[in-house]
């Protein structure tokens, strides 16, 4: 974004502090524009003025331009599953944060028999992995035209669209692409790809069907030419694919192209290349070797470019040793480094506990809390879970850093009145907080039981240790 201080935004606002945007003051709204937690259009008075007055409209457009992200934001898909890609501002996450996680599209190809297609699609839509309080899921499909048959491609595109996820349509043959667009253009698929050979036809398709388009070229001069040509013909939703070469010098070159594209856009402010970047880890399947080698290599390529700037990716493998690490890495790289992920402290009742059930204590770091909560639920353990405010720090670090202390345990016991809810006086603490055992007993008068190091082992622990032998 071009503006650097809230004051610059403030000057464009009505400055009435009317609160319609939900913020107390125009200044506060301006600072939220700057960290991108508010949108210019949330200032309704500004929008209303623009509707009635040409000058105000110009002003609004100027503000939108000044506050738009450095990298264009492109939407793929429609409705609640639509994905935003791009929209980034910085080269290093600590400089602000990364915004739109790399979109993961999974391979389906049209020469596969229908039953197999359904199997793959089912696996993608039903996939889930619990992490920090929610399930991580997969984003969408990449439908490839391996048949080179327009009819079949359209049929499969339609079938896959039925799964309700965003799609990338993959065919270099414009006839095939057109035939698929005829049936699924209303799903706003991303079309892949316009190249030096087919760009005219693809330009026409992008305009006619109003769909976002990937431009593919290894030569960055050519890639930029394509982008400038498409943009000046009226195509705004552009994604750049600088061609993923999976190994050797090819991989080195790919690394360079991806980084240079993003640096050019952000350091030099070159709008002609300030678009989302597509990387295709699926290219790893073209190297020699067995399935494990290829899958591992696909993970390697994906990881490299999740860290460095890919906004969308096409994967072939849907095996866990590819999916789980890449999904987790994406989550890690795209969490907002400005705020530790935390949950509200207090008392949680797990599985309708009775006054005889155990009292556990943990921290309010989201990763810790949700791990513990889910382990308890999965193991069908009934109990009372005290959640201590450690300012979003996990068990071991907060014990070491003095944010998990005996006196804070005492305060939490008092605040939550847990003593009135249970008949016993036993508190189960995390194994990693064992060193606080004595201190907590002294402070609170409760008997402290040291639980396992990993809450995933609470089930076995309970069988042995609960109810406690007097």
């Amino acid at each position, binding site marked *: 974004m071009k503006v650097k201080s809230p004051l610059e935004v403030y000057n464009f606002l009505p400055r009435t502090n009317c609160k319609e945007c939900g913020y107390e003051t125009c200044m506060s709204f301006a600072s939220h524009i700057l960290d991108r937690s508010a949108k210019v259009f949330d200032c309704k008075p500004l929008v209303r003025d623009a509707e009635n007055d040409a000058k105000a409209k110009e002003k609004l457009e100027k503000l939108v331009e000044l506050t738009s992200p450095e990298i264009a934001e492109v939407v793929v898909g429609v409705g609640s599953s639509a994905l935003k890609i791009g929209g980034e501002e910085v080269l290093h996450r600590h400089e602000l944060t990364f915004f739109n996680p790399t979109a993961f599209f999974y391979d389906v190809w049209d020469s596969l028999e229908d039953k197999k297609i359904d199997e793959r699609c089912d696996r993608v839509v039903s996939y889930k992995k619990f992490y920090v309080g929610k399930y991580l899921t997969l984003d969408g499909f990449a439908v490839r035209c391996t048949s080179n048959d327009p009819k079949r491609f359209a049929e499969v595109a339609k079938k896959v669209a039925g799964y309700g996820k965003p799609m990338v349509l993959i065919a270099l043959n414009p006839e095939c692409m057109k035939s698929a667009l005829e049936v699924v253009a209303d799903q706003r698929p991303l079309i892949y790809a316009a190249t030096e050979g087919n760009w005219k036809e693809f330009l026409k398709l992008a305009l006619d069907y109003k769909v976002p388009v990937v431009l593919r070229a290894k030569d960055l001069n050519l890639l930029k030419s394509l982008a400038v040509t498409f943009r000046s013909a009226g195509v705004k939703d552009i994604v750049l694919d600088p061609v993923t070469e999976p190994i050797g010098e*090819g991989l080195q070159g790919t690394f360079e192209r991806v980084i240079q594209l993003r640096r050019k856009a952000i350091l030099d402010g070159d709008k002609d290349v300030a678009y989302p970047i597509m990387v295709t880890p699926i290219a790893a399947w073209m190297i020699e070797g067995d399935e494990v080698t290829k899958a591992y290599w696909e993970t390697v390529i994906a990881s490299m470019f999740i860290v460095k700037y890919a906004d969308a990716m096409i994967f072939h493998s849907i095996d866990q*040793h590819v999916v789980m690490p890449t999904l987790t890495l994406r989550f890690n790289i795209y969490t907002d480094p400005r705020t530790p992920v935390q949950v509200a402290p207090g008392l949680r009742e797990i599985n309708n506990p009775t006054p005889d059930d155990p009292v556990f204590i943990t921290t309010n770091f989201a990763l810790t809390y949700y791990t513990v909560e889910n382990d308890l639920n999965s193991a069908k353990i009934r109990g009372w879970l005290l959640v201590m405010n450690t300012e979003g720090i996990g068990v071991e670090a907060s014990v070491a850093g003095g944010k998990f202390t005996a006196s804070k345990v005492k305060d939490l016991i008092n605040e939550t009145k847990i003593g009135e809810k249970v008949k016993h006086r036993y508190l189960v603490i995390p194994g990693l907080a064992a060193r606080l055992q004595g201190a907590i007993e002294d402070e609170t008068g409760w008997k402290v039981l040291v639980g396992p190091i990993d809450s995933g*082992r609470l089930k076995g622990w309970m069988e042995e240790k609960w109810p406690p032998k007097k």
Partner: protein
Amino acid sequence: MAKKFTLEDFLALLKKYDVEVLEDVKIDGELEIELEGSAVDLSAFTALYSLLSEFGNFLYHANMALTYLQRLSTMLGIPTPFQVQMPAISAPAPAVVPTEVVKVPEVKLPERLIEAKFEAPKVEYPGYIEEVVLGATRADGGTREYVVKLGGEKSLAFYTFDKPQPNLPAIAIDVFDRPPALAKAVKVHYEDVVGSPSEWAKKCVKKFGADMVTIHLVSTDPLLENTPASEAVKVVEDVLQAVKCPIVIGGSGNKEKDPEVLEKAAEVAEGERVMLASATLDMDWQRICEAAKKYGHVVLSWTQMDINNQKMLNRYLLKRANMPRNSIVMDPTTAALGYGLDYAFTNMERIRLSGLKGDNELNFPISSGTTNAWGAREAWMVDSPLEGDTPWGPRELRGPIWEIVTGLTLSLAGVDMFMMMHPLAVAVLKEVFNMLSGKTKGNVADAGKWIFAEV
């Protein structure tokens, strides 16, 4: 120099790790990290508890060095090995779209591409990362066959388009002086050597291509065997005899005992230019530094994920202990993928950028205890303990990739030296480093083949 490692070798190596027999799969998420088979009651034995908590520590506290065993290095010396058994579907010629179905577009379509030139940006930093040499050959008064150089960068990792990468990251494999607690997938590779640190070290170098080894003197821990320093360091002599690579010597992580142990180790390794792991803020770092200076070694400056603490400790080492600038390596702490990797990555990236921008208290090579990745339950558990999860698949495949992705991510933040354990993870990371730095030639014949191929 050494034998060239070909794609075939690489693939053969990888194949060995193909889905291993899963006879012992139990879907209960039971921990594979055993402590000599005993079930440990934490509440009863504080000593054992801290031993357990040291698990993280000693896997992690492995501080290592590096070098390039060109053995695995030039891995894919292959021009185009990709005559794959894929049905060759030829790229269709761009078809002419029949005019009658085309709606007349409102915009006039361009006839030819608008010319544009992409001028790649160049980034130069005022600073540089110190180059630290580990190991000493005969010429320098030691007995190592080669040295390992860390650091020396003037740009971000693998940004060879800004500046050449002077040294690739090196990999050290962990060796322990007593049988350690290890995840099963790791343990199977070391079962035959756990009793003998020198055999263990040999295996790391000869079989798994380690650039260096780290010998962790864990048994010196007062809560374990409490081996006296003078006795423990005999293992160091054995290892120096057994392998000719540069070595790293780690203590037990005990803040009181480590200075004494490392001092003694420095003495027996005189002239070999080892790395002493580690000096931390809450111990007698001065004593470790004195020993390092006296016997010509390098010190690992280890802090816990805090750039300011790292800067402070480095400053103490430089200003108060007068360590030479070419004898400090930093360990800013590694957290596993999914367990704080975001913090570790950003902390290291910030440290590296500060160094490049000219902060001369942070411009030292970085080391990572990548073995920490095995602490993540996704790496070692048989399956998810949660019912809602899609099954996790064979852990034999998940574990190594967890170590690979953790290391790979941190290599992009600027890590110069990895302390690792799984041989497959070691091999894959080396391959990645060779490719990103341009050491591995070769390419696929057609980078667009996946578009049409039936995989």
